[in-house]
């Protein structure tokens, strides 16, 4: 009924992501869409506002590449390893460009996506009380319960221009299934104007899986088959997390020149196909 959803990664990124967009590339350690981020770097799509609960190495790379003007997040580190040096360098020293931040708690970010996915302008939660987080953002406020009078936190809805996620499988119609830790991906996808899904595999049929989250094709804008597209994170059933990469990233990212050399060698000059491997 609609145009075919299956695209090459190059074309999907070029069609869906534009300079100045607000982009969420979600994933909670699992199923992080690295290949799509690398394609963004290759195409030099810039002035991005990046959104994610747990910006990790993928955002460190985009920030270090100079493509990001603002980060909306709740925890920015290299999980299990330490700091994100490119993120810190951008925030602390403005290198390679200043980075604005809109900082939340996990509960706040999760609910901002829920509001976005629900077509509501805000969400209510028990959070932020007494924390100074609210003093540095204009997307936290308060509401009063009209029944009990109790004061609660309110967070503004998040509605990215584009959400990018990686999933295990899609069928030829563009129906998508992911399983394992599915984090906040459904909410991030449904909150967005456009949805790009990279998948390990395009299959004839999606077999329902325990813990499976299905996004029907009519809720997805484009699908690209990118085996290994979550590396160095993992895709349950297809790959395991490359913990060595995360450990090694600490040294790579600590120094600006080392980082640039790495980026050039491993992302910028590689073709999409080679990079996906």
């Amino acid at each position: 009924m609609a145009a075919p959803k299956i695209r090459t990664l190059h074309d999907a990124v070029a069609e869906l992501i534009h300079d100045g967009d607000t982009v969420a590339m979600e994933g909670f350690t699992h199923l992080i869409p690295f290949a799509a981020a690398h394609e963004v770097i290759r195409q030099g799509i810039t002035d991005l506002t990046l959104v994610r609960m747990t910006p990790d190495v993928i955002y460190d790379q985009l920030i270090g590449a100079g493509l990001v003007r603002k980060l909306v997040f709740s925890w920015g580190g290299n999980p299990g390893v330490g700091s994100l040096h490119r993120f810190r360098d951008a925030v602390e020293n403005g290198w390679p460009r200043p980075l604005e931040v809109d900082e939340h708690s996990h509960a706040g970010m999760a609910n901002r996506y829920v509001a976005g996915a629900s077509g509501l302008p805000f969400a209510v939660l028990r959070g932020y009380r007494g924390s100074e987080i609210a003093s540095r953002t204009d997307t936290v406020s308060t509401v009063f319960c009209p029944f009990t009078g109790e004061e609660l936190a309110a967070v503004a809805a998040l509605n990215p221009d584009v959400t990018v996620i990686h999933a295990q499988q899609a069928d030829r119609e563009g129906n998508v299934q992911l399983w394992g830790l599915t984090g906040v991906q459904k909410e991030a996808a449904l909150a967005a104007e456009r949805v790009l899904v990279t998948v390990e595999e395009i299959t004839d049929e999606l077999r329902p899986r325990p813990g499976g989250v299905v996004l029907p094709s009519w809720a997805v804008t484009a699908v690209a088959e990118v085996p290994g597209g979550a590396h160095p994170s993992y895709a349950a059933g297809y790959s395991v997390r490359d913990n060595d990469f995360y450990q090694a990233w600490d040294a790579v990212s600590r120094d600006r020149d080392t980082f640039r050399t790495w980026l050039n060698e491993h992302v910028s000059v590689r073709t999409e196909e080679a990079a996906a491997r």
Partner: protein
Amino acid sequence: MTTTAPCTPDELMTVNAARALAGARTCFVGIGLPSTAANLARRTARPDLVLIYESGTLGSKPTRLPLSIGDGELADTADAVVSVPEMFNYWLQAGRIDVGFLGAAQIDRHANINTTVVDRGPDKPEGRLPGAGGAPEIAANCGEVLIVLRHSPRNFVRRLDFTTTVGHGSGPGDRERLGLRGKGPTAVITDLGVLRPDPATAELVLTELHPGVSAEQVRAATGWELKTADSIGTTAPPTPEELATLRALKAA
């Protein structure tokens, strides 16, 4: 087993952090030191402890220490995997979880926590820390909060550079005033000993020392004038079983 085994300060910290979970049924586990301690507890003091990770797993039973909160084994071994919004709203926020187990970059005398930014002095930009993560709502919504971190004047500060997560606010009654559930922080377990809030003042006081540590050492490692309990205990030395289990966990 009363044999004293030689061990490191970090091991003393972790073993005592695990013991602090002996009475818990469910624990919301932060990554790093809390996760190590909670996994040790599940192998020693509290075999039926339900480990809950913010990535969405209820009842994870990992066979080795997860490097991150999203390791596949956390999901594969869980009783249930839920979405992250469900985790924070239905499970954490509703007050179902007994203990929230947190780390910290800076902590003050009322067990408030900073994990956001540090002041690096005049004319220098703020130093960037990872940020809040789940901590503000974990501390706000669990039955009680345990905190584990290494003891140093850089970490135990007179005044936080930024309040990310409220422990006891500015003193007694503050949690109630702010609408926070639960008891808040009940123990801070470090590599030197254990601090607990004085019921009258909600200020952390030194209640236990690890074997071989002096109160003077702890005071020197604390950025405020640390008070001590009327009678200071000494933590039991790690048993050989505790140490062997911890070392096997870390080696795996």
